[in-house]
């Protein structure tokens, strides 16, 4: 089972050429760009005690005047009350009903070679209706290998608050979902008689306190012409290397939510996210396809406008071009077993794949998964100087926005900071509303892509060392280990483009798609960039071989894809780490050659006919 992937480009990549890039990235698993400069300037730690990451948290308390109930929200509440009155008495009874509305205003633009390639703007209001039939102990949503989950069906709601039309859609969806849930419950009961008991006999659904919070929806007016001009200017710089296919894209998403449940929760929550991607690929004569990306993220339009200045974008394009030039000239990586430094962003993805996905509680209900940490609560799983937590309420690290931030998860449960590992000891799981043995409440990590199921997922994963060394000391220790092993060089993993992990029983593997890897020579030669390297390893072994950390934190903002819940924005933060032994393998080799003809000559602009 390919359970989890992390990537940053998502479906920004559309169209044939870009689709093929997306496939490459998906196969690779992830993409890794992050702003390289935000935190690297932090002065290195000089003593053994590490400074904590400079997280900026948001308060769950509104702090602003509660918004008035919109007529559409009121219509949904009325319709939910009507549905509940009927379906609670039905056989089998519906014991939980929820309406989740996402008013999604989506803007996507990209520019290639100085010209706007795509501008897509949509505005839809989607209704996701959940009906649980049976009882908490055993309900229609229980995971089962032999009875597939019902598909999440979205329905379009009117864009305006037309109460009659909204209620009509909600009524039809509720009736449909109830029938589907009742049918599945019947199938589950039938197969229960002939299957062995589940390993974890927890309830199927947690009981949570209802929450009522109405936050105002702010205005949302992206300046499309200004953004188009900005993207044109930035992408034109790729023309410096015409053989390269470069693209500058932005995606701005306003996701304003309503959540209404039969438990009494009523939420109105604004959601905003803007991403800016700079990516390029280059085909080399030996068939390799080299890629490089950079990325900027913000919670607001104003934020991205301040970040993505012309100078900044030009600098990032130049970085991508320079990276690809250097990679094209770099030697191919050789298989390698030995020590490596993971610089912060890469280290963060290592933890995401090795620890994070294995801490997602809902996986314990999948019999086909390996349940790495099911029996490890209270057990040491990594060196005592390391702690790991996940905190969706963290909005920023320093000045950098964390894309995994939210205050209420997709179930409508308040987000909580969850300690996964404390001083090397595994403490507990990330939980949505599917309880696991010993953990009967959600901690606000029920997440899912729109139109997919919600599962427990990471939000903002943070690795925090209690002791740190300066970066130069980390490098010195790397070289000590290289010499001790009698090697010529060690490795420094500067960037990766993503990773994936396999969680199946009988196969617990992680793979990292490395994009910038340097050989660090024992004899003092300058570091040498190599290309075509991937990392492959077993999660617990890698975690156990972490030797030291700096307290220079970096963030990997990206998108994480998994099983039934799809893609969610997610961030990972870590300092640089020294791992005493990693295994590097070669990337699969491509077959395509560069284009037959050279790029067309640039023409001077003259007036059209």
């Amino acid at each position, binding site marked *: 089972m390919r359970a989890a992937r992390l990537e940053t480009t998502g479906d920004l990549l*559309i*169209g*044939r*050429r870009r689709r093929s890039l997306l496939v490459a990235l998906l196969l690779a698993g992830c993409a890794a760009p992050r702003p390289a400069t935000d935190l690297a300037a932090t002065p290195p730690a000089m003593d053994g005690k590490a400074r904590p990451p400079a997280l900026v948290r948001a308060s769950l308390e509104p702090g602003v005047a509660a918004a008035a109930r919109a007529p559409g929200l009121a219509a949904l509440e009325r*319709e939910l009350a*009507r*549905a509940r009155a*009927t*379906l609670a008495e*039905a056989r089998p009874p519906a014991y939980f009903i929820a309406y989740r509305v996402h008013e999604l205003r989506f803007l996507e633009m990209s*520019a*290639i*070679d*100085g*010209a*706007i*390639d*795509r*501008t*897509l*703007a*949509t*505005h*839809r209001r989607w209704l996701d209706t959940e009906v649980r039939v049976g009882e908490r102990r055993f309900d229609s949503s229980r995971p089962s290998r032999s009875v597939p989950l019902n598909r999440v069906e979205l329905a*379009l*709601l*009117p*864009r*305006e608050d*037309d109460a*009659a*039309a*909204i*209620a*009509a*859609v909600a*009524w*039809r969806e509720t*009736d449909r979902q*109830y*029938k589907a849930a009742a049918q599945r419950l019947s199938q589950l009961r039938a197969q229960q008689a002939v299957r062995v008991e589940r390993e974890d006999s927890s309830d199927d659904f947690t009981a949570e306190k209802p929450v009522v919070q109405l936050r105002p929806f702010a205005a949302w007016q992206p300046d499309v012409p200004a953004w188009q001009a900005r993207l*044109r200017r930035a992408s034109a710089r790729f*023309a410096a290397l*015409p053989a390269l*296919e470069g693209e500058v894209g932005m995606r701005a998403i306003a996701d304003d939510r309503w959540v209404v449940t039969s438990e009494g929760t009523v939420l109105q929550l604004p959601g905003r996210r803007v991403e800016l991607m700079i990516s390029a690929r280059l085909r080399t004569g030996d068939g390799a396809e080299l890629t490089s990306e950079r990325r900027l993220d913000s919670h607001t339009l104003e934020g991205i406008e301040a970040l993505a200045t012309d100078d900044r974008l030009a600098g990032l394009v130049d970085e991508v071009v320079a990276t690809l030039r250097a990679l094209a000239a770099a030697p191919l990586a050789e298989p390698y077993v030995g020590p490596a430094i993971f610089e912060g962003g890469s280290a963060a993805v290592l933890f995401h794949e090795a620890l994070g996905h294995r801490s997602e509680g809902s996986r314990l209900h999948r019999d086909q998964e390996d349940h790495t940490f099911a029996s490890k609560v209270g057990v040491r799983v990594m060196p005592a100087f390391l702690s790991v937590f996940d905190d969706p309420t963290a909005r920023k690290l320093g000045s950098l926005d964390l894309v995994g931030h939210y205050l209420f998860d997709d179930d409508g449960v308040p987000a909580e900071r969850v300690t996964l590992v404390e001083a090397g000891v595994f403490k507990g799981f990330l939980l949505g509303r599917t309880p696991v043995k010993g953990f009967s409440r959600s901690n606000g990590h029920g997440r899912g892509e729109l139109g997919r199921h919600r599962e427990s997922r990471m939000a903002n994963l943070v690795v925090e060392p209690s002791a740190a060394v300066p970066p130069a000391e980390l490098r010195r220790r790397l070289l000590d280990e290289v010499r001790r092993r009698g090697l010529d060089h060690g490795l420094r993993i500067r960037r990766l483009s993503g990773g994936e992990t396999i969680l199946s029983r009988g196969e617990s593997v992680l793979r990292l798609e490395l994009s910038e890897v340097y050989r660090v020579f024992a004899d003092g030669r300058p570091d040498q960039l190599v290309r075509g390297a991937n990392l492959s390893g077993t999660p617990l072994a890698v975690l156990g071989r972490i030797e030291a950390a700096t307290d220079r934190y970096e963030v990997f903002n990206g998108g994480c894809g998994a099983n039934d819940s799809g893609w969610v924005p997610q961030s990972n933060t870590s300092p640089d780490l020294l791992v005493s032994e990693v295994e590097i393998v070669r990337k699969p080799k491509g077959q*395509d050659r560069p*284009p*037959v*003809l050279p*790029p*067309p*000559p*640039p*023409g*001077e*602009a*003259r*007036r*059209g*006919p």
Partner: protein
Amino acid sequence: MSPTKRGALAMVLGLAWAAPPAVAVAGEGAVEQAMKDELARSLAELQVPGEPRPYYIAYTFTDVEEAEVNASFGAVTVSEKRRRRFLRVDMRVGDPKLDHSNFSARYSTPEYSSSEAALDDDYGSVRRLLWRRTDDAFRAALERLSAKKGAAERQSESADAVPDFWVGAPAVNLTHAPPATGAVPDPGPLAGLAARLTSIFRAHAGIQRSTAFAQHTVLRRRFVSSEKSFIDEKTSNVRLDVRAETQAGDGMPLWNAAWFRALEPRGLLGPELMGAEVERRAAELEAARTAPLATSGDAVVLFEGPAATDIVWRLLADHLSGTPPARTAEGDERREGSLADRLGQRVAPSFLSVHDDPSVEHMPDGRGLFGAYRTDDEGVAAERVKLIDKGVLTGLLMSRTPSRDLGRSNGHGRGTAIDGSYQGRFANLFVTGGAAALDARRLRQKALAVAREMGPRTSVYVVRLMDDEPVIAFHLTGAGEKPVRGLMIEGLSSRRLKDLVAVGDTPYVSNLVRFGQASGVRGMPSSIVAPPLLFKDLEVRRDTRKFPKPPLYEHPHFARPKPAK
């Protein structure tokens, strides 16, 4: 265009293209200039040592400007406008007798058809895109040609080997923008209309769900080929579909629809007339809820209105392509239901004639036809083609891929290439019954008479709306027509045309946009014009599938207030 003029134009273009592309053009002419410059370079220079070269290249940019609207139960759910541009690169590698086309290579690189292109009219970026996509197309073509030659070496040579490409197509220089294409797609008015038409269902308690979909599309196609053709042709269409769904008491799903089509929004019926049509369909659907179930057995069936054009599409329209099936490593593929092997044979009763004419932009009453164009997607001038004359198959729809019987295109190469070749497809298909056509009353009399001839207990059904099975149908007796539901028809195929016993005299115009394999970037606008069609000896049966239960509680808009306790 006269041959002399055409020759002169080709010469002028040839000279223009031969000039080195020293300067770029900004603005409106940039795309055209970039297409010509990169095409000239590719034709002259694209070569891998030891491998065949392209002998034909064509570029097509299709600009799409579109407004799209959805509404539900009187309220707008989607109202959007978008602009997109797509590029298609067509190439023939080898020579016209044997090139890479019309070969289905299972393991070769998929030959791409269309890719999205930059919206800006920027010479440099358009040229670079053309360069990359031409390179992709060339590689895919070389791979396919190699596989095709390999397969040919393993197969015995066919005695009737035909060339792969018709090279006699005259160059075309055309700029054509019908008046309707001047209307700029605007979702606003369509949204108002869609909301208004679906609000009608707020007075129909028996209907569970009502939706409307509207789309106004203006397409601009710019085509440049190495044969010196340049085409800049626009087309447009507007669709407004209203659909209503409900269930019968036993749970059987039922639906009905009203379709409004025109070349531009002002060509649609007035709102009052559209409203009246929606009311009629709503009443028809409500009546169907309590209608009796159909009876199984042999039957006489009259297809009229949209059901008639649907039958023409299923039994005829898709089987008139003369494009030979693609070869494979195992031999030639068979094309299910194709009439191509029956050229010159009787395929329908002698009263039936069929032709296709893309040059007809409007019906005599002014209704526009979606399938109208001047040149097809291979840049060949459209021709009227007589397909069935008095029941005999006399012609087929041809692209530039010749067949054993027909060596040239008749301007029906549409959509995008499949396995390197365009398929001959219908555009505006006209079905007529000539002097034998009957009016509605006589047609019904004829239906009852045929049923009597077939024997006792033979039912007569009138089908007004078809999906995979009849959707809206009536049971016809001497006393009149009554709604019926659950009617299913077995074995509908082109062979059943022989069971056609009469046609009506009132043609129904069905404007449709076809989607599916190789249908082009925004579907393939097409039209079928067909009179009511009366069939005998059709095997029908009652739908006996299990259905979902009706709703467990009342529609909120029609719910009665609960009595006070």
